[in-house]
């Protein structure tokens, strides 16, 4: 335990599968009321981390505390305080949306109003439809509804919007904004950088079982990664240069070349560019390390 204001506190978390390292010393905290995103490519360790915190997996070493309790020993009372939206499941779905939510609401001491939750996830018209008959995106909304029905203090969202169309994703963001306003702390994993940028207060980029960077969305990758890039063609060769003063560089180019530079672009790296750079750099590091060890 580090800080009484932390809902999640993880120190040097490690996980080995057989001889393979899944997590290689992950450390982070999530403060109460905060939305924290774990970003990373497939197999980076996002799901392993979240499943350890949900109590589904045991860690190999390190410390983990979720709502003040070791998730490996989380009992019924602890489970009543968290909400879990797993990666997609394939349940048979022989009950209706309303039946399922009514039944699950009964597990919790202070559940949300069922109709309110059905409206919140936009399934009013499907409330009396069997879950098995819903589309993939609609079933995902049922998963989210089941995750929040118990009024959790901490909500785990493992790739919640995979398979959503852009409109459904926007609606989902609105729902999460509502939960945040309600004071719910959220741990989110996602592939979608725009999703993390919209929802998360802070994010960590994880790759190869290690956190390669962490901070607010505007800090990730560092100031240097956000320096604009100017690209142009010099005859047949493509040139690019990073500069804090792109306008000055462009003006300079124009003078030097005696006219309009060919194929001119001024680019401010998006979160996606920064993320790809981070993941690429950590991969290159890993390769260098492997080569050095070989």
């Amino acid at each position: 335990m580090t800080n009484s204001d932390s809902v999640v506190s993880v120190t040097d978390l490690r996980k080995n599968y057989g001889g393979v390292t899944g997590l290689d010393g992950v450390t982070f905290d999530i403060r109460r009321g905060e939305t924290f995103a774990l970003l990373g490519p497939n197999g980076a360790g996002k799901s392993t981390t979240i499943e350890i915190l949900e109590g589904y997996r045991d860690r190999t070493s390190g410390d983990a505390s979720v709502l003040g309790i070791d998730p490996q020993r989380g009992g019924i009372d602890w489970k009543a305080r968290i909400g879990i939206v797993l990666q997609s499941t394939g349940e048979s779905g022989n009950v209706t949306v309303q039946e399922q939510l009514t039944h699950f609401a009964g597990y919790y001491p202070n559940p949300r109003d069922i109709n309110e939750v059905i409206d919140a996830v936009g399934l009013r018209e499907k409330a009396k439809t069997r879950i098995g008959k819903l589309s993939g995106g609609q079933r995902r909304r049922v998963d989210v509804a089941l995750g929040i029905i118990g009024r959790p203090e901490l909500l785990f969202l493992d790739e919640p919007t995979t398979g959503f169309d852009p409109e459904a994703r926007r609606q989902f963001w609105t729902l999460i904004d509502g939960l945040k306003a309600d004071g719910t702390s959220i741990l989110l994993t996602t592939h979608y950088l725009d999703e993390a940028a919209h929802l998360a207060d802070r994010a960590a980029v994880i790759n190869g079982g290690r956190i390669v960077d962490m901070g607010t969305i505007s800090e990730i990758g560092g100031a240097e990664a956000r320096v604009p890039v100017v690209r142009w063609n010099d005859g047949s060769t493509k040139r690019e240069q990073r500069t804090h003063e792109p306008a000055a560089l462009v003006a300079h180019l124009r003078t030097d070349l005696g006219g309009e530079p060919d194929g001119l672009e001024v680019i401010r790296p998006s979160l996606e560019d920064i993320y790809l750079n981070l993941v690429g750099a950590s991969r290159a590091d890993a390769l260098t390390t492997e080569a050095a060890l070989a």
Partner: protein
Amino acid sequence: MTTLTTTNGTTGTGPAQHTDTLGRAIRLGISRIGYELKVYARQGDSVFFTFLFPILMLSIFAVAFSGMGNLGAAPDGTGGISWAAYYLPGMIAAGMLLSGVQNLGVDIATEKGDGTLKRLGGSPLPVISYFIGKIGMVFLSAIVQAGLILLVARVGFNVELPTDPNKWLLFAWVFLLGVITSCVLGIALSALPRSGKSATAVVIPIVLLLQFISGVYLQFTMLPEWLQNFASVFPLKWMAQGMRAVFLPESFATLEQGGTWNLPWVAIIMGVWFVVGLLLTRMTFRWIRKDT
């Protein structure tokens, strides 16, 4: 989607107020029974293969052998019992086995495979409530099933049912012990299939084989002695024997192994399997397979 209102919210107020009491576990277990029955009734295939199957088989055997005269009749053709009456106890025993072992063995393995158990494992549902739900569902469906088998036998095939209350008392304990034993064995067996998809392939052959060697479809005394001895290790033979003691005339006891109904052993073997099933369940049941 709309946003959620913040009324009556107690988010972020420390530990939950309720405690993990037995009362809560039982209350949730009872709510699981209703939920399980709803899900079960809506699954066409399991209703057919576990619920209606013994009724169907009783009807087929009764019709197929109807031209062969009565069993155990005197040389002049009088007396004895009809084939429907002869098959009735075996089919009731088969129903007990199917409702417990086959239904739960397949059902729980499937729920393990499709993520149902993972979701429940992350919710504050006590494991005991889950089992109350499953076992309650099996008991209610098995009682209705036995009632239907008796109804079809009585009305459809004119089988005389016992009038002696002692016979019905015997029926009650053989049925209760048989179904609860089937339940725990089904739960234990659900640990065997490696995936939900292979569940029926693993469970159904075991159950079917037992029905053939335990005197459900084939007359038990027709089997070679070594096979009778082998079948006697398993509980279905004893469930069927107990049910024969309820529904067949006393004179048929001489056809049993040892020439008696041997009710103490009916109780002992089922009781032993109940304990074995309970221990196996205790050792093998997990919400999810960790670290696979």
